[in-house]
């Protein structure tokens, strides 16, 4: 294997195994080779459990206990990591390689001001004094575009926003003047607008600081935006690798294609096509397969071509460096993105089932010993309608109030004012325990994290039987049959009835959670970020399942999401929320095409698309959302609005401009002619 002298990091046929006290060692990484030249950016993608993070940690020689490198070499600056002593290793970690992690909050020491944590890096090696270190920390915070670095340096991590925390972590990595930055899911868990800003920052930093990047992500859009080459990892083997453009345009391996097809795209046309999930899940035995590890999940699997013989990475297209590990490489033609199938947007507007008018929810912060704290306006004056058989999506960043609206409708918290009429009952003042059984049955909720919503000590059967008995008054025997039917509806085999939640995969758990919500035959199903905790491949299957349910039973769906691509794929109606207010509302087509509210426009621009040719977003939203306890007289979005027109934005709350059913709350006259909007669709 040619090893260029300029490679910063090079994996040469590296294998890593996990040894336990009993049993044979499990192969975690199997013969992985790639190299990153100076200033290069290599993206590593794959589902969870593929070994992405293991590779990152191996590059730092910081494998978890029990994992050992069983073959191959890892070279940093052409030096074998295995041969370094403790001192050399520490110099390497402090100076040549720095790592940026998922979940910045927990990566920072909670009891140390961030300035001290930054300064520590150069101070450790004793090369600079405190004042130089402070100056450098200041400089780096500037470089990651944090406003007022002096003040930030005195703060503790919990006093910063999520975006600021990740910028601090990046600044901390840059303090080492590294030749290689390893980023392990750096934007997972951040809001789309913050994600876009961080990705934008990474691109500029790469140009300014000249560091090479190993970018690990499950987010293909983020990889396309940042990297110049990519490796697709499956059960610890690279199944496809090459420069970004050919891999994204002509993916050769069925797994790579699967990942791309499973992704809802924000730039998709208006006609819905079902997402293509990758069926099945990684089984432990797949790692031991001699042939293709993906074969059990592959639609193109042929025993004679794929099994019983080792498959090597072979050239996959004319592009140099584009290789794939597939037994039927030549035979599989480049398929088009999935065929257009019917399933277009439901026709007509649908009757209004639930009508929310002027809904507000205020909290009082603090308030110990009767002292009134500041008023937190979680939701103010929200208007929207849930229509029979239609999907309403409420989108916005965290803190926008989208979950608050859902909670008031579901009765988890009572609202402060306004009303939400459902069958001539006002739901706003009624917490769930004051609602009639029939209303409770009719409105059900699915939560983001299925791990924590299912009781770990109840079997699937019990979890499904309870609501059947309580909400529908079925006898035990009837409920038992009902549980079986519910599992069928969410396409799970009835063998799972006796399982406990921890014995299910993440996707299966979310299906059970959906089945539980369906138990009472609800009319409105509220799903709060139903797929954001799941892998893309599983995500697609759940999205399709929700789509099927919508068609087979006249359920109305309310989706709470920050993911515009998902929303574009699912929603008939969209409400865009910012700081407790609905800033844009209307049928999905109208909301997602011009004219936009400036916030919707920024959200759309921020959503990463898995397209190497897509231009970088024109509008990157800076700053952070103001605190909901702040009194805002003008437009709530004014402080971050890239299209602010003048002082009127700060002083006057914009009135709602209406064009047919499309509503935008903005001072800009977005609709010069009423006909313009209609013509666009």
């Amino acid at each position, binding site marked *: 294997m040619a090893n260029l002298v300029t490679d910063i990091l090079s994996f040469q046929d590296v294998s890593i195994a996990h040894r336990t006290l009993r049993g044979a060692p499990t192969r975690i990484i199997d013969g992985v080779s790639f190299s990153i030249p100076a200033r290069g950016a290599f993206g590593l993608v794959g589902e969870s459990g593929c070994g992405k993070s293991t590779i990152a940690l191996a590059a730092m020689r910081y494998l978890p206990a029990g994992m050992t490198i069983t073959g191959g070499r890892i070279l940093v600056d052409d030096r074998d990591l295995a041969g370094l002593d403790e001192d050399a290793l520490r110099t390497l970690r402090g100076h040549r390689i720095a790592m940026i992690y998922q979940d910045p909050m927990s990566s920072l020491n909670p*009891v140390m001001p961030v300035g001290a944590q930054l300064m520590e890096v150069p101070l*450790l090696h004793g090369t600079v004094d405190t004042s130089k270190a402070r100056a450098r920390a200041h400089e780096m915070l500037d470089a990651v575009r944090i406003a007022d670095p002096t003040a930030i340096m005195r703060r503790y991590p919990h006093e910063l926003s999520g975006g600021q925390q990740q910028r601090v972590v990046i600044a901390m990595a840059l303090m080492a003047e590294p030749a290689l930055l390893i980023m392990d899911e750096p934007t997972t868990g951040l809001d789309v607008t913050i994600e876009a800003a961080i990705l934008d920052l990474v691109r500029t930093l790469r140009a300014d600081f000249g560091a090479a990047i190993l970018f690990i992500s499950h987010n293909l859009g983020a990889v396309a935006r940042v990297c110049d080459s990519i490796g697709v990892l499956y059960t610890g083997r690279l199944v496809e690798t090459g420069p970004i453009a050919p891999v994204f345009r002509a993916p050769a391996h069925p797994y790579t294609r699967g990942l791309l097809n499973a992704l809802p795209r924000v730039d998709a046309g208006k006609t819905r096509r079902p997402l293509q999930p990758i069926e099945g899940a990684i089984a432990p035995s797949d790692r031991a397969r001699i042939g293709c590890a993906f074969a059990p999940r592959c639609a193109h699997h042929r025993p004679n071509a794929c099994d019983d013989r080792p498959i090597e990475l072979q050239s996959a297209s004319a592009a140099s460096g584009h290789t794939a590990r597939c037994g039927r490489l030549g035979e599989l033609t480049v398929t088009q993105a999935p065929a257009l199938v019917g399933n277009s947007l439901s026709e007509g507007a649908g009757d209004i089932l639930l009508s929310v008018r002027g809904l507000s929810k205020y909290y009082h912060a603090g308030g110990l010993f009767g002292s009134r704290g500041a008023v937190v306006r979680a939701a103010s004056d929200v208007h929207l309608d849930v229509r029979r058989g239609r999907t309403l999506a409420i989108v916005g960043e965290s803190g926008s109030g989208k979950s608050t609206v859902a909670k008031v409708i579901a009765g988890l918290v009572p609202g402060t004012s306004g009303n939400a009429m459902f069958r001539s009952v006002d739901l706003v003042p009624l917490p769930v325990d004051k609602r009639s059984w029939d209303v409770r049955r009719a409105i059900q909720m699915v939560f983001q994290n299925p791990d924590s919503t299912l009781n770990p000590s109840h079997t699937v059967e019990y979890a499904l039987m309870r609501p059947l008995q309580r909400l529908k008054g079925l006898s035990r025997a009837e409920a038992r049959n009902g549980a079986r039917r519910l599992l069928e509806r969410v396409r799970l085999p009835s063998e799972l009835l006796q399982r406990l939640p921890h014995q299910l995969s993440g996707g299966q758990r979310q299906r059970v959670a959906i089945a539980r919500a369906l138990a009472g035959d609800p009319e409105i199903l509220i799903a709060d970020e139903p797929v954001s905790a799941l892998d893309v491949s599983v995500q697609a299957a759940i999205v399709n399942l929700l789509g099927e349910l919508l068609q087979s039973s006249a359920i109305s769906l309310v989706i709470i999401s920050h993911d515009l691509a998902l929303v574009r794929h699912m929603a008939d109606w969209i409400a865009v929320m910012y700081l407790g207010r609905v800033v844009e509302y209307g049928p999905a087509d109208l909301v997602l095409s011009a004219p936009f509210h400036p916030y919707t426009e920024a959200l759309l621009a921020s959503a990463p698309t898995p397209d190497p040719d897509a231009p970088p977003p024109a509008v990157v939203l800076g700053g952070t959302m103001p605190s909901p306890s702040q009194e805002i007289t003008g437009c709530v979005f004014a402080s971050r609005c890239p299209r602010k027109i003048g002082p009127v934005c700060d002083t006057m709350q914009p009135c709602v401009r209406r064009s047919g059913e499309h509503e935008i709350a903005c001072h800009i006259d977005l609709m010069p002619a009423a006909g313009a909007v209609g013509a666009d669709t």
Partner: protein
Amino acid sequence: MLRYVGRQLLNMAITLFAVSFLVFMLNELTPGDVARKVLGPYALQDQVDQLTRQMGLDRPVYVRYIEYMGKALTGDFGESIVYRQPVAAVMWDRLRNTLLLATVSFAVIVPVSILFGVLAGMRERSRLDRAVNVFSSVCASIPEFAMGVFLLAVFVVWLKLLPGTAPLTSSGGWPIWSQFVLPVAVVTIYDAGYLISMVRQSMVDVMRQPYIRTAILKGMTFRQVVTRHAMRNALITPFTVILLQLNYLVSGLVVVETVFAYPGFGRMMLEAALAKDIAIVEAGTLIAVGVTMFTQLAGDLGYMALDPRIRV
């Protein structure tokens, strides 16, 4: 901050009043006649009645409570019937003795527990960790009286190195300091065993946190990681528990004090309770509650100093 402390002190005062009233009422309702207790079973009923009148026990409860509190605020807690002395004289003496024992023990227990807890927890399942783990669970599971008797057998009866009792007078020929060795040892072994495992567990949890990985991958030595990043975080959780030991050391040392005949607060409470010496029980309860509330306030303040996420 000051407002918070002020408010807590006010709460403490209110609670103390409530407790004093409850204890007063409780003693009032327990069977048994104080005058009868004093005079013995063979006294005539006339004499008992007369003493009851003399002690003012025939007046209504609320009058006596107000009178009691009025005197208590000036430091007069009444007369002990067991010790035949003013309660204040007995109690402050005993409290001082106990605080002495508690302070010495605390000064040993805290550094020992932090040291061994941190050393064990910083490398989970290392040899040192296992050793400390076994040792601390053994220590914590041997009851104080068993450990006391065992140490007495070894150091007093067999080796004759230390005194077997700790009356805090040098009349037995042993210097006062030597009388502290065994009581402190028993308390420390028992209590440190428990605290070490608390600190160890917290340290283990902290060492698994992502920010420890951050620190290691900054290129720090393990020692730097432990002292700069892990220790302060690891002490946040056990801090309250450590302070709670003060309560135990003030009012829970009955067993140790009894084994070594130590004239302490716990033993005084026990004797008073057995003899229905109401004045002592009342005053002692107030002191114990006061100590508890004081350590709680200290705990809150220390918490805030350790963890910047907690602010008032």
